[in-house]
């Protein structure tokens, strides 16, 4: 029974992956991302003495931006075609549970995003080698942490677009949460300030724990300071943190989707 359920989840995921990798808009975005990463070589020429750091920094910044754009656009395209074009009607009248369908869609978008990230990473590493930058495992760890952040983003975006009455509203709220999630680290400073009132402290503490803290997944800035690599315990903790948040958002999304009328 579980085996059949899993194969249906994989079938949905494969369908999403096939649809996305052939979609013209996503292809254009992908080519644009690669061109921008390649363009970092020119910036490298303008900043002598940076020893490849510019190339890597620009590469990572593009990976983060285009990873986010890819997942947002993929979710928009897939959900638009499902709901507005109503192709979900045919799928959900087949013997597949709504939870399996939702999980499959999550996995499919995750595959698309990771595939995009992998190709961009290979390009960054290839260009870095060409520029004689000495590479180490830290570069891979940075991408791993970045991908964990994107995993959480996929989960909450899916949850939001399921709960929201329309697709743009869902995407808008998800983008807002993504933005707040990148600023939660600053909340710590505000909470610690003596002039912050007790109710404000309570409210901010609540936001701090309820919203995923994306700065935990940002290892770019720490990369050059880590001589012997990142602490494995820290990596384990952020993996656990990302998985917990992803499961919570997936659960919320599935429950909302099970009640959604199509």
């Amino acid at each position, binding site marked *: 029974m579980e085996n*059949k359920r899993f*194969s*249906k989840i994989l*079938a949905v995921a*494969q*369908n999403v992956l*096939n*649809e996305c990798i*052939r*979609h013209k808009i996503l292809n254009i975005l992908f080519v644009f991302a690669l061109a921008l990463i390649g363009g970092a070589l020119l910036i490298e020429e303008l900043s002598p003495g940076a020893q490849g750091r510019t190339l890597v920094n620009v590469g990572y910044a593009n990976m983060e931006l285009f990873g986010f754009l890819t997942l947002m656009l993929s979710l928009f395209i897939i959900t638009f*075609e499902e709901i507005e*074009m*109503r*192709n979900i*009607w*045919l*799928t*959900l*009248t*087949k*013997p*597949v*549970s709504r939870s399996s369908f939702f999980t499959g869609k999550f996995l499919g978008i995750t595959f698309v995003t990771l595939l995009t990230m992998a190709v961009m990473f290979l390009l960054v590493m290839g260009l870095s080698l060409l520029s004689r930058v000495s590479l180490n495992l830290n570069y891979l760890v940075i991408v791993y942490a970045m991908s964990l952040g994107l995993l959480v983003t996929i989960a909450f975006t899916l949850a939001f677009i399921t709960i929201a*009455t329309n697709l743009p509203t869902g995407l808008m709220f998800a983008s807002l949460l993504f933005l707040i999630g990148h600023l939660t680290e600053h909340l710590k400073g505000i909470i610690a300030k003596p002039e912050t009132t007790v109710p404000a402290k309570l409210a901010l503490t609540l936001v701090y724990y309820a919203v995923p803290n994306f700065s935990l997944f940002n290892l770019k800035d720490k990369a050059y300071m880590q001589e012997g690599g990142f602490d494995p315990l820290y990596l384990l903790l952020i993996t656990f943190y990302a998985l917990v948040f992803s499961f919570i958002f997936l659960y919320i999304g599935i429950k909302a989707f099970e*009640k959604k*009328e*199509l």
Partner: protein
Amino acid sequence: MTAIEAKGLSKTYISGHFWNRKRTTALRGIDLKIKEKQVFGLLGLNGAGKTTFIKTLVGLVFPTTGRVYILGKEAGHVQTRKSIAYLPEMPYFPRYLTPEEILLFYTKLYEIPENERREKVFFALKEVGLYEKRTVQLKEFSKGMLQRVGIAQLLLNDAKVFFLDEPTYGLDPLSTKQMRDIILSLKKAGKTIFLNTHQMGEVKQICDRIGILNNGQLIIETDVKNIKGSLESYFVKKVQADGK
């Protein structure tokens, strides 16, 4: 045995934001029993609630009150969906996939053994005359061709109950005839068919029983053979007599 049963089925849609809720009642207390191997035609004006009714039967929308059973099981349940096939009014498919890919995807959901999948897909595509176009992306397809892919997906799982919402919508005369032939062959094979349509000729030719839905209420349910004269004038008379 009863194939389709609706008991006190009502559906009210709630739309708008919480400060401006709007309620629209699409179905009002429908009681209906359709026997196995029967072909039932549901007639009604535009906006009468026909599509909502069929969507409730296949589990896409949930009843506000009442219950729906297909072959004795709750409608919309995963197990129930193994025995049904559904064709929406204008079927849409992922645009960048091919008919072969989308039908193979459906065979996976139907749990058809891997070694039989391709054979089933090819058979269905041949039946609707799209075998040669099986590797063309669906974005290249016309409305009529998409409708034919929709018909092909009906033939994948050896369903017992078929729900067809305007199956000849957008089809040219030849494809319309092909569609009717497919429905008739399903009827001959002893399948239960629930048909939503505006085509009175289709109903007279195919259906055993009809129901007329007006303003969300099932105002009449009768055998086609009981109808004297043209079905069209019968329909108009009943709807006008209902007066809503």
